[in-house]
């Protein structure tokens, strides 16, 4: 009759999953295990379209004992859940959001791997839910957290993540079902029994051992070697930018040559922080150093051909495809447009043609679609021959265009940083927008230039409004960058955001301009 009694009588297990990923098998194993144990059990699921990669849940209740038939519920009661068994980590967050996880009661057993939602994927920038924050939330929202990357473990041991999670459930000791019954359930199901039992034992051990098992995060890629000719210069750089510069210099030498890397270092020099400079100043140098290196190694046809013809690439492809002793055939999906094709040719030769083409095809350029079999001799040669144009790159049409843009960006960063380091930092961060190929690259470059121009206009409009005016320009730079990084819908809001900000600034209302930019 009292609320406490059934806490012992019934154990509730909620299994959130991503549709189509096998949450059903997991819940069936649990039901089977309970039956094998001889305790009363009941499980439900939601069938149908929710399973097509959408979020879905399975729910199981197990009665601990007694001859009497309990009243099973088809849903968990928010705030009174015993076990959350999540086959994907963001679904833990979703269950917390729905009020289903109780810090005083719920044991959370979860795989920390992520299957990104479409909304995390389609942003132009980074929209992935921060993993550390998610883990911290799971820890704080649960009575006990058993979290590990079940998918990575499963791959390593050629088993299924579900089986590992089942083992962890058995090992957690929260369900009134013995481990033998779980093994029986796997055997009765009769599918990949050996592999699943292997996974089960793995999870069992993990849950019994550390409270929160974990697979170490992937190590940061090791630092590349700096060519001898540049070692002294890199070593003389301030500590805070040395790692970035090391990676950058290696990338640039790989891209072109030592002289090109020197050009990078020369461009970076004005932004290097003096000893004891404030953190913002240091961050400015790091941001410029990072984006400049990526920009200077823009992906022209020569670069793409070079990356695609490296022997280690084919080794990587073989390994990823688990080709074993099979034969591998690789087909490249290439479709350079006119700009990319003559971008590699000398500027003087191409410029008049390019000007004409811009007028002729203002939206998009003609393209040359081709599927190249890079594992055949002729296919490979077609790509390899492109790389022989590398010596022409410094005088190419594309080089001239890109370097002019870089200079405009660097000048804007320098000018803004002289006014206010924070403002300079935000303008430097706009370098993140320059990426993509073909139409996307043209669009992103245009957005980058719009952001620079809009910020400079804001600075002009705010010149009588002192520091507050600069704060508006800084906030505008940040806001515009984030809008563009959201994707096309965000891009569409850029013009209106700038117009509203400028109108307020021109009316002398810096505070009013600042408020909407904060969101």
């Amino acid at each position: 009759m009292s609320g406490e009694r059934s806490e012992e009588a019934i154990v509730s297990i909620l299994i959130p999953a991503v549709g189509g990923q096998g949450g059903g098998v997991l819940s069936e194993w649990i039901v089977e295990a309970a039956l094998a144990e001889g305790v009363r059990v009941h499980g439900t699921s939601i069938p149908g379209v929710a399973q097509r990669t959408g979020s879905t849940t399975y729910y199981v209740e197990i009665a601990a004992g007694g001859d009497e038939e309990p009243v099973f519920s088809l849903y968990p009661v928010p705030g009174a859940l015993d076990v959350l068994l999540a086959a994907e980590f963001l679904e833990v967050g979703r269950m917390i959001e729905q009020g289903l996880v109780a810090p005083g009661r719920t044991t959370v057993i979860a795989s920390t791997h992520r299957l990104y939602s479409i909304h995390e994927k389609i942003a132009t920038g980074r929209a992935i839910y921060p993993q550390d924050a998610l883990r911290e939330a799971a820890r704080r929202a649960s009575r006990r957290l058993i979290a590990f990357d079940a998918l990575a473990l499963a791959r390593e041991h050629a088993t299924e993540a579900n089986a590992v999670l089942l083992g962890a459930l058995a090992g957690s000791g929260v369900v009134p079902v013995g481990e033998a019954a779980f093994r029986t359930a796997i055997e009765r199901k009769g599918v990949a029994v050996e592999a699943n039992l292997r996974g089960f034992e793995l999870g069992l051990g993990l849950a019994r051992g550390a409270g929160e098992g974990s697979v170490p995060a992937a190590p940061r890629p090791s630092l590349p070697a700096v060519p001898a000719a540049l070692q002294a210069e890199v070593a003389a750089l301030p500590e805070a930018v040395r790692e970035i510069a090391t990676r950058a210099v290696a990338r640039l030498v790989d891209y072109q040559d030592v002289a090109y890397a020197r050009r990078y270092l020369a461009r970076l020099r004005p932004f290097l922080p003096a000893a004891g400079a404030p953190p913002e100043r240091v961050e400015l140098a790091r941001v410029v150093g990072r984006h400049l290196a990526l920009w200077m190694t823009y992906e022209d046809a020569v670069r793409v051909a070079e990356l695609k013809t490296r022997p280690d690439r084919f080794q990587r492809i073989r390994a990823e495809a688990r080709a074993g002793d099979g034969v591998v055939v690789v087909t490249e999906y290439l479709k350079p447009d006119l700009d990319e094709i003559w971008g590699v040719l000398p500027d003087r030769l191409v410029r008049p043609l390019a000007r004409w083409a811009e007028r002729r095809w203002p939206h998009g350029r003609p393209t040359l679609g081709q599927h190249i079999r890079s594992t055949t001799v002729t296919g490979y040669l077609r790509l390899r021959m492109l790389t022989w144009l590398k010596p022409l790159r410094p005088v190419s049409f594309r080089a001239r265009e890109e370097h002019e843009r870089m200079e405009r960006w660097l000048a804007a960063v320098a000018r803004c940083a002289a006014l206010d380091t924070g403002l300079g930092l935000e303008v430097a961060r706009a370098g993140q927008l320059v990426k993509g190929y073909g139409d996307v690259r043209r669009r992103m470059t245009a957005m980058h230039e719009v952001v620079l121009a809009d910020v400079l206009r804001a600075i002009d409009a705010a010149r009588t409004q002192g520091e507050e005016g600069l704060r508006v320009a800084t906030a505008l730079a940040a806001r515009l960058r984030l809008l563009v990084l959201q994707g096309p819908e965000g891009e569409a809001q850029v013009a209106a955001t700038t117009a509203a900000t400028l109108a307020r600034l021109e009316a002398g209302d810096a505070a009013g301009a600042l408020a909407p930019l904060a969101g």
Partner: protein
Amino acid sequence: MGERSFTEDVKQLGYGHGQVLHGEGILAITKALLQSGVSYVGGYPGSPISHLLDVMADANDTLLEPMGIYYELSGSEAAAAALLGASINYPVRGAVTWKSVVGTNVASDALSHVASAGVVGGALVVIGEDYGEGASILQERTHSAALKSSIPLLDPRNSLQSFARFVEEGFGLSEACNEPVFFSIRIRACHMRGTLRCKDNVRPQVSMLTPLGAPSFSLERINLPPFTYQMEAKKFTERLPAARRYIVERGLNEHHPGSEREIGIVMQGGLWNTVLRGLHALGLADAYGRTPVPLLVLNAIHPLVPEELVAFLARKRHVLVVEEGMPNYLERELKAVAHEARLDVEIHGKELLSPHGEYVPALVVGGLRRFFAVGPPSCRSHAAIEDAYAALTAEQERARAALPQPVAKRPPSFCTGCPERPLFSALKILRAKAPELGDTHVAADIGCTTFSTQAPFNVGNTVLGYGMGLASAGAVAPLFGKRVISVMGDGGFWHNGLTNGVASAVYNRQDSVLVVVDNGYTSATGQHHNPSTGTNARNEPTGMTIPQALRGVGVRWIRTVDSYDIPRMLATLREALTTRFAGLKVVIASGECQLERQRRIRPATRRALAAGETVVQPRFGVDPDVCTGDHSCMRLNGCPSLTLRESPDPLREDPIAHVDESCVGCGVCGEVAHAAVLCPSFYQVEVVRNPGRWTRWLAGLRAGVIRFLAPGSPTPA
């Protein structure tokens, strides 16, 4: 056929007296049909009742045919309802099933006619009430359909034993009152795992083995005046009173007296579990359903029996009605009954619970708590109930406070390698590259294709009904100023689209474009066969095709395009949108459902590999150093296997694209990158396993030459 194989379940359907069946709610219902001696079973699939039809299909050869039971997957819910016509004149029991409320809407015409003519053999309609969490359709309930046609409605409490009992009672009720009977079951209950103590199956008296032979004619069963007037009169003077008598005599509704005198709860049977758990959460019931609060569990919610209600309400001060959906028929009826009987009782319902939404525990617990504040129980203090409630909500709040930002939604989408995805990639590309044509009204339909309306495509301006996409563009097309596009799956095409869509559009000379997505199955319900699959649910050949049907109703402009061929699809759509041909233009986007395809080829591949045969396995990849992480490919694709990973160069902070191992090699990512001119990062890998000697020799030779050409070797330049 179907998403799952039911071999084990079919075995259990053959169980005899005393054997214990382990399985889902829907299996218990299926078993109970066989225990009731049905002569025929039909229906139209749809969540949550698809599995009933799947199990029957799998049981057809071994169980149904030997018993002479006729089974069909009907052309639509209307066709399924019309099957019940067999029970109008003949003493045969039959059952049909569909997803409701949409299926009931489609079935209404036939259903009204059956309910008017009445039945002599028991006729049961198993309704999968697709309402609330996990529902895939609009939110309405079937109750009103039962009321308007005077069809008794069973809403039994959730246990397999109860389902089986009420299927059997349903037939008895139907025969007692000469009306078909609705048996309603909720989403989660359909897939609730439990146990059933079985009875023997009953061989039908009339069957394909022992056929009727002679027709029965009676003007009284023809739905024409003046007999329709008599039929209406009979409903209220004979049939519903007979139903009430049966309900009372058989004790279909349950009255738990409890020890509380002044309060009580009336509920739909299907909400019994949730209400009991809610009472338990507030400390007013134990885990086994013992509660001091008097309960009236209405397993039959139409017709209600006034005497039963009055007996429950008498001498109580406050009664709560727990009833999902609006209008609140039960609550209103109780109020009316109480008023007529001059009872001094306050009846509460929607004002304490909610006029909308599924009655899940959070909602019911909140409603119960409010009820006990109005009508306090004598055995537990108000403070104790409030404390129990506060403890639950405090836990929820504590957990929520730990979450730093909202969690991204995860809308359902096309599966990995789905043949429908490239169509919507093409439509989205066309919208961007040729807005004068592609940026037009798109009438979407029901089925997997509906996912086009979700991210990342957001293609489709309206969703109106199954197979109704084209019909829903009927007035938009002439009013739009440019050609509009309608999309329809093959399931929808055969269900409703061919007649109400295509024939009507041709007849009315509609100048628009229809895309029929032909993936070979009615996939959204679980890869059910439809007329153009090639075979029916009993695996008999059909010989029906979509182009044949289109030509038959006068469509002159038909193009069939491999749906994975995005350039051709773009060219065909352009042609359809610009051609001088003024009538209906139909593009058939053809490509087999990938789930079904994988289900077929995976085992075949495994066998071939084991036998040492040469197998070519394609998949796609992204060069991590070529990808710059702008994610344009994802905005035009959305394939689950196309995902994110960190760039190998830490200088690049944004995540880059990555094709994970779930890739089935359909090639859409590469084709999209190609068609939309995105980037050169995508490549296809074909792994030739168990290669022949020649293939191996050639590959060796090529690798040797390439090694010579590769960087690091002496370059010819």
